[in-house]
C-alpha cells in the first residue's frame, strides 16, 4: 500500500494504430473457445462410430442434435423447464437470503462464529438428499420440499463468503468509523457491507450453480413434482441417451447463461472492485 507506480509489466504493444479485428480475435480467447468446442464436437461425432463404446450409451453428436430437435418439437417439457427454473430461482433467492443472514449474524459475532462452525461443517458434510423424506414430511409433496433441499445445498458458499467478506475492511477503516462515533449499524451498512460485496457476489454466483444442482438432484433422487431432473431420469431409464444429453446440454447452457448474467450484474454492483476494473478494460 505505498504510492509506488503500478507493477512493472512488460507491455509489448506496438505503437501502431489500434489492433484489427483479426489481431483482436487472435489475441483474445474466442478462438480458443471455438477451437475447443470444435474439437469436442468432432470427438463426440467420431468416437462413438469407432465401436469402442456402446453406441446406444454414447450417441454421436449428430444423433444428439437430432434428439434435441425432436425434444424441441415435443414441447411438453416447457412445463418441466418452468418447474425447474422456478424452483431454482426461488431456492436461489431464499438460499442467498438465508446464507447472507447467517453470514451477517456469524460474521459480526466471532463468538457465535466459533460456536456454530462445528455444526455447520457437520451439516455441510451430510449428503443432503437423505433429508428429502423428512422435508417431504414437513413441506408436502409439492415443489416446496425440493426447493428446501436446494436451499440447504446452495446457501453454504453465500454464508461463508459473507462471513469472510465482512472481516475484509482494514483496521484503519474501522478506526475511521469509530473515530466518527459511527453506530454498529452504520459501520455495518457503510463500511462492512460494501467491502464484503465483491466476496458476497462470488458466493452468490456459486450458489446459483449449486441451486441448479440441488433442484435437479432433488428431482432425480427424491420425490418431486416434475422438472428437468425427472425428465433426464425418465429418458435414461428408456435408454434414450440422445435425449438425456439434450437435457444436460440445456442445463449447461442455462447455467452458463445465468452465471454470465450474474457476472454482468456483478460488474455493475461492485464496479469498484479490482476484478471488475480489470475486466472492464
Amino acid at each position, binding site marked *: 500500500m505505498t504510492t509506488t507506480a503500478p507493477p512493472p509489466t512488460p507491455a509489448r504493444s506496438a505503437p501502431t494504430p489500434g489492433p484489427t479485428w483479426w489481431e483482436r480475435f487472435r489475441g483474445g480467447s474466442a478462438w480458443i473457445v471455438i477451437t475447443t468446442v470444435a474439437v469436442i464436437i468432432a470427438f463426440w461425432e467420431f468416437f462413438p462410430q469407432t465401436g469402442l463404446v456402446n453406441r446406444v*450409451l454414447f450417441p454421436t453428436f449428430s*444423433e444428439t442434435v437430432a434428439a434435441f430437435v425432436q425434444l424441441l418439437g415435443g414441447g411438453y417439457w416447457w412445463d418441466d423447464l418452468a418447474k425447474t427454473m422456478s424452483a431454482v430461482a426461488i431456492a436461489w433467492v431464499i438460499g442467498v437470503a438465508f446464507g447472507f443472514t447467517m453470514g451477517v449474524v456469524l460474521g459480526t459475532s466471532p463468538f457465535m462464529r466459533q460456536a456454530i462452525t462445528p455444526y455447520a461443517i457437520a451439516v455441510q458434510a451430510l449428503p443432503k438428499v437423505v433429508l428429502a423424506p423428512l422435508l417431504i414430511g414437513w413441506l408436502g409433496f409439492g415443489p416446496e420440499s425440493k426447493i428446501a433441499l436446494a436451499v440447504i445445498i446452495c446457501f453454504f458458499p453465500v454464508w461463508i463468503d459473507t462471513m469472510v467478506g465482512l472481516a475484509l475492511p482494514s483496521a484503519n477503516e474501522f478506526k475511521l468509523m469509530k473515530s466518527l462515533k459511527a453506530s454498529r449499524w452504520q459501520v455495518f451498512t457503510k463500511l462492512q457491507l460494501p467491502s464484503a460485496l465483491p466476496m458476497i457476489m462470488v458466493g452468490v454466483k456459486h450458489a446459483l450453480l449449486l441451486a441448479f444442482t440441488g433442484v435437479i438432484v432433488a428431482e432425480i433422487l*427424491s*420425490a418431486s413434482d*416434475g422438472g428437468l431432473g425427472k425428465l433426464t431420469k425418465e429418458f435414461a*431409464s428408456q435408454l434414450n441417451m*440422445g435425449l438425456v444429453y439434450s437435457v444436460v446440454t440445456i442445463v449447461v447452457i442455462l447455467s452458463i447463461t445465468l452465471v454470465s448474467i450474474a457476472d454482468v450484474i456483478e460488474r455493475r454492483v461492485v464496479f469498484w472492485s479490482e476484478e471488475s476494473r480489470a475486466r472492464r478494460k
Partner: protein
Amino acid sequence: TAPATDPGAEPGEERYEITMAMASGDTYTAEWWGWLAADTLGYYDELGLDVEFVAAGGSGAAMEQVIAGNADAGNPSAPAFGEAALVGLPVVNIFTYSSGAIFGIFVPEDGPFQSIADMRGANIGISEAGGGEVAFLEAALRAEGIDPITDVQLIPIGDGGPETLAALDNGSVDVYSTAYNDIFAIQTAGVNLIDLTPAIYNTFPARGIITTQDTLDNNGEALQRFARGTAMGMYFCLENIEACRDLMKGAIPQVFEQNADGVSQGDLRFELAKTQVVPADINRIGQHDVAGTQEFLDLIQSTSDSYIAVNAPDVLFDGFIDFANDFDRDRVAADAAAYEFQND
C-alpha cells in the same frame, strides 16, 4: 339408471380429500391407467372426492410416506408392502390393482447361463441394494439348491438405465433380475434377454392401494369411495384400451418419446400392463388373491431371520370390494365408447 347408493350424487353432502403417494418419480407410469382415467374423467369428483396424486419417488419412499401419515394411501409394489408388513408395520392393502410377474430373472440370449440351476458362481445384476426383486431371486436360487449369499455374487446395476446396459454389455454380470418394466429398454437397445422366471412367480399380486390401519379407521369413507372410483377407471380402460393409451400419452408424453429405432418404452409397458391389470373377475375389480399373497409373504419371510410371520388376511382388507364394484357399468361403457382422441 344411476346406482341405488351413490353417496356423492346428492349435492351439499360432505366431500373428502385423499393424498395418494404414487411409487415413481413421475405421477403416473404407463401401466397406471386405472387411476389416471378415473381422475381425468372426473369419477373421483363425482364421488365427492378430491384426490391429489403425488409422485413419492419409488415404492420404498411411497411406503415410507404412507406409514408416516403424509399420504393417505399409496401404490408401492408388493415387495415394499410385504417388507413393511413383515417388519411389523401396520400396513393394509384395500384394493389389488394388478397381479402377475412384476419381477423376473433374465439372461442374455448368448450368455453362459441358460437356466437357474446353472447359476452357481454367477454374477447376478439386481436393480439396487435392497431392491424388490432380491427376495424373489433368492427364493428361486434356493429352490435349486444354490445359496444366494455364498454361491453367487449380487451386483446392483440399476433399473434398466445406461448403467444396466453397460453392465450387461461388458459382461460385468451374466444374469439380470429386476422388474419386468426395466428390461424393455435393454431389449430395444439390442440385448435380447431370455426370461427364466419360475412360473409360480407370475401369479403373485403386484400392486394395490396400500394404506395404514390408522387411516383405515379414521378415513374409511374416503378410501371406500377411492376404491370405487379406481374400479370405474379400470373398467373404462378395459372397455376402450386405446382411449387409455391416449390419456396416458397426454399425461406423460416423455415416456412415449420414440428412440432412434422408433420404439417407445411407454408403448411396450402399456402392452405388458394389458395382461397384468386385467382383474380375474371383471365383476370383482380389486379383489385380493389371499392364497397368492400368503405364498408371496412366506417367500419373502424365508429370506431373512429378522422377519416375523404374517397372516395374509390380516393385511388384506376386503370390506370395500363390494362397494367398489357397485357402480353403473353401462354408463362407464358409454363414456368409453364416446371417448374422443386428443393426443395423436
